[in-house]
């Protein structure tokens, strides 16, 4: 409730790090996890103590470690964001077909990725804006079509202040009926099978009304919506 008294600006909310921290609570011991570019990448910094997860990068590595020390960069060791990385003990390297065999075959338990829009039936759009230059979908379409658990990490609204949680995506789709959970700067939401974003948690200091105002798709609001515990 801090900041709530003199609040004339939009409600307090999480920053990108906060979103990543909240998502890290979803990790389970022994999971293999693919993190997309942007906010999802930050999740690797907040793995809870006592659990072990292995990060996969779809260009062909399991057991991705932190960035290398200065001067120790290896041009032959990068992640899917083309960043120089390191390999942890127990890592393995493989080709692109094997990498997506893991993903498509649901051996990777969790995918975290960003989105431009998510619909209340779990559709996701994150690769193309008509009229703007297309960069390509990379591995996103394979990831969203395959993963059993897909968490979208994104801001609740776009730069124009419009909701990114819609009843139907307006942008070209990356995948349909695939997103299970969404963590934004305002809330944690679950996509229910019968359509609708079920509000699970509020960001610290954020009111249900703020979330309602920022959500264009159907929002299911339980009687009690706890505040996120970021520990």
């Amino acid at each position, binding site marked *: 409730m801090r900041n709530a008294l003199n609040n004339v600006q939009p409600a307090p909310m999480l920053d990108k790090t906060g979103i990543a921290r909240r998502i890290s609570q979803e990790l389970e011991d022994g999971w293999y996890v693919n993190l997309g570019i942007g906010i999802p990448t930050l999740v690797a910094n907040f793995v809870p103590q006592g659990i072990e997860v292995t990060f996969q990068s779809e260009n062909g590595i399991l057991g991705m470690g932190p960035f290398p020390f200065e001067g120790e960069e290896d041009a032959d060791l*990068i992640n899917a964001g*083309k960043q120089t990385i390191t390999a942890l003990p127990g890592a393995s390297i493989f080709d692109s077909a094997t990498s*997506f065999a893991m993903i*498509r075959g649901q051996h990777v338990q969790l995918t975290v990725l960003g989105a431009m829009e998510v619909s209340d039936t779990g559709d996701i759009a994150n690769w193309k804006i008509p009229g703007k*230059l297309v960069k390509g979908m*990379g*591995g996103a*379409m*394979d990831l969203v079509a395959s993963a059993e658990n897909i968490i979208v990490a994104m801001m609740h609204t776009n730069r124009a202040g419009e909701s990114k949680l819609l009843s139907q995506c307006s942008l*070209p789709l990356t995948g349909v009926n695939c997103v299970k959970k969404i963590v934004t700067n305002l809330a944690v939401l679950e996509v229910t099978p019968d359509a609708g974003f079920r509000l699970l948690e509020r960001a610290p200091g954020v009111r249900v009304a703020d979330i309602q105002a920022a959500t264009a798709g159907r929002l299911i609001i339980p009687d009690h919506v706890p505040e996120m515990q970021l520990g």
Partner: protein
Amino acid sequence: MQKQVADARAALEGLRSGMTLMLGGFGLCGIPENCITALAESDINALTCISNNAGVDDFGLGLLLHSRQIRKMIASYVGENAEFERQMLDGSLEVDLIPQGSLAERCRAGGAGIPAFFTPAGYGTEVGEGKEVRSFDGKPHILEHALTADFALVKAWRGDTDGNLIYKGTARNFNPVMAMAGRITVAEVEELVPAGTLDPNMIHTPGVFVQRIFQGSRYEKRIEQRTTRPHAR
């Protein structure tokens, strides 16, 4: 049967304008630098290039875009290249974007004699438009077809004179599957050793997939995103 050739130029003999090429690499990691340079120095054009990315403006496939030798690009992600953007917008470059996993699997299928397979990737999106849809266990999939190429140009770390290849780190990426899918596969390697040097148990690409091999030179191995952490003090 001699697979070893002197250099990229010799390795690309018979590669003509209008052909379809596969080029290994992810970003600038594991790309066939010597072959790309040799192509850039040739007057071969109107190429269809199948590669996960399209290089950057002054390196990798960007060199062939700059010289307008590419007519069509089949890739999954092309976001690092302003020249690419220009040519796509002015209509001189045709672009076919494919989900990365489908691209990899389609290359493998091409090499493995699997003409088509079902995958969930792209269903319900524009990638799935016009493609056959079929549900398996209640989940919709689309039918994707194999890709092959007149030439596959791959880069490995070590290779032997029988064409056996070993890649290093994530420079492996698309190289093994493209090596399978070329009618003529050219491998450039950082170190070429006599057959019998490499452990048969530790070969990433068996020599049967490689028709020509040479030891490349002057590898730049550019880094696109140099990310580091400071040394602990």
